[in-house]
């Protein structure tokens, strides 16, 4: 076996492997044995046909394929071992020549190298968005709406009423709709089935039938009907009016939670809004910090890793679409891109995502983020709650994935605290190291100044 090696600066090694005929012959022999076990050749019991016969029967190319299938991974494995490489993921293998000398190129990704930038000096002093009285009022109004009751009334229809209607619609004589006793929420914002439909109903009495013509919306789902005039015939069978509960202590009591008075409820809403705004800020900050860190970091990652990950993502998307009986190529076409454009865009996304992951992992390491088994179990329990996507967490690999996700989250939390200059509430050795680190830095500054 001859190996020549080509290192690229981006943590990628190309190995050119050549192997002589004897080795191939050995694998051909084994391949022929395997094939003869599987296929029945007239005149021979299974597995008993000599190689020459099998070769004639199955074809040399087929045997060669079979032999290489077994030989190539072995070769690449041996070559990696011989060169003392530590690959990440699967090597990308191309068979250059098959006969008489097998020539194989293997592109091997090494573990990426990440040098974080000066992340400790990233600062964001954004404050969470202040919660105003009108925000609280708005939430309260929403709660009030959610507690509204519908009460049957007997009067002319007003906008906002819930009407029970029988509806027939025709476009140029062709039936469009035929609905019996459906509930219809009137209101200007309701543009179904046609814009202005609700307005036409205003003033109708129960039992009344009206006929009118309206143009359908330009974006009506049935393309051939869009924008055309439709004739509607509507009969109102019943009316309900919305009754909003008054804003008082009773409303507070009727809601889940432990607020007994209106003030308590308002305070509760305010606290909730505040924590939500804080949460939103934290999330956007984490994303921004991560972006800055990724841009600052010196990351050397094998391009083949990105390629493989892109292919994997592509495959996943294809499968997801196929589950809905959709075709990936057609889907890409619908977005107005060519397949190449789509793939290269996906590649950029994947590259970004990989870089983010690498930075988070490196940060977790640098900050000694640790995750206990208990935390992993707790997270798994949370993820296994009903309503979540069903995933099997029993395997070690799955546990490990959860652990890594938690570590990344921890790393981001740490970065956020650093950026907002908060001290972590629990004293850890990592904190100590960071603080002394900073002190020595400031000391150095002083000595330089003096």
């Amino acid at each position, binding site marked *: 076996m001859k190996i020549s090696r080509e290192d690229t600066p981006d943590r990628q090694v190309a190995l050119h492997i050549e192997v002589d005929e004897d080795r191939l012959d050995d694998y051909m022999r084994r391949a022929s044995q395997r094939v003869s076990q599987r296929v029945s050749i007239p*005149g*021979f*019991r299974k597995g*008993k*046909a*000599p190689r*020459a*016969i099998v*070769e*004639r029967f199955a074809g040399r190319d087929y045997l060669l394929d079979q032999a290489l299938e077994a030989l190539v991974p072995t070769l690449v494995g041996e070559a990696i071992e011989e060169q003392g490489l530590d690959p990440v993921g699967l090597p990308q293998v191309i068979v250059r020549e098959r006969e008489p000398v097998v020539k194989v190129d293997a592109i091997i990704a090494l573990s990426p190298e990440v040098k974080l930038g000066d992340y400790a000096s990233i600062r964001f002093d954004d404050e969470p968005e202040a919660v105003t009285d009108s925000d609280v009022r708005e939430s309260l109004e929403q709660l009030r709406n959610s507690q509204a009751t519908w009460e049957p009334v007997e009067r002319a229809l007003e906008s906002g009423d819930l009407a029970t209607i029988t509806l027939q619609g025709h476009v140029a004589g062709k039936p469009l709709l035929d609905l019996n006793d459906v509930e219809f929420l009137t209101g200007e914002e309701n543009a179904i089935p046609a814009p202005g439909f609700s307005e036409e109903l205003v003033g109708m009495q129960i039992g009344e039938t009206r006929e009118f013509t309206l143009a359908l919306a330009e974006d009506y789902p049935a393309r051939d009907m869009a924008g055309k005039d439709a004739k509607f015939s509507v009969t109102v069978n019943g009316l309900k009016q919305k009754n909003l509960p008054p804003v008082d202590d009773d409303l507070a009591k009727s809601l889940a939670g432990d607020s007994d008075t209106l003030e308590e409820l308002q305070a509760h809403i305010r606290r909730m809004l505040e924590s939500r705004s804080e949460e939103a800020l934290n999330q956007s900050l984490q994303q921004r910090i991560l972006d800055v860190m990724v841009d600052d970091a010196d990351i050397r990652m094998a391009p083949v890793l990105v390629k493989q990950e892109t292919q994997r993502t592509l495959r996943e998307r294809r499968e997801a679409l196929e589950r809905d009986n959709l075709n990936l190529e057609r889907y890409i076409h619908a977005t107005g891109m060519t397949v190449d454009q789509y793939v290269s865009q996906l590649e950029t996304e994947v590259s970004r995502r990989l870089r983010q992951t690498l930075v988070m992992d490196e940060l977790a390491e640098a900050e000694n983020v640790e995750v206990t088994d208990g935390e992993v179990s707790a997270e798994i329990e949370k993820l296994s709650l009903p309503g979540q996507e069903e995933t099997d967490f029993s395997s070690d690999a799955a546990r490990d994935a959860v652990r890594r996700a938690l570590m990344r989250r921890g790393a981001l939390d740490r970065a956020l605290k650093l950026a907002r200059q908060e001290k972590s509430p629990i004293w850890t050795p990592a904190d100590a190291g960071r603080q002394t680190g900073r002190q020595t830095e400031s000391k150095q500054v002083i000595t330089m100044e003096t």
Partner: protein
Amino acid sequence: MNPAKVLKRPLITEQSTLLQESGKYVFEVDVRATKADIAAAVTWAFDVKVRSVNTSRMKGKMKQYGRSRPSKQPDWKKAIVSLGLGESIQLFEGT
């Protein structure tokens, strides 16, 4: 007999490949061919010396296709040809 019409095809089976190791080659031959005909035909076709020929007349098998009445396959003659020492035949390309 016309040597070109004697040999019909080589019989390639597990047994016949085993026999090849001791210089014996198995053919399906014309039923009318004599041992002498077969020896001459092999020499003519492969340019080898023949030491001896053993023959046997094989009964055609009864075969039934679908629901039709079983019919008899034609009888045929098998010849095991022993070659002189050191002689060999290449029965097909690439071996």
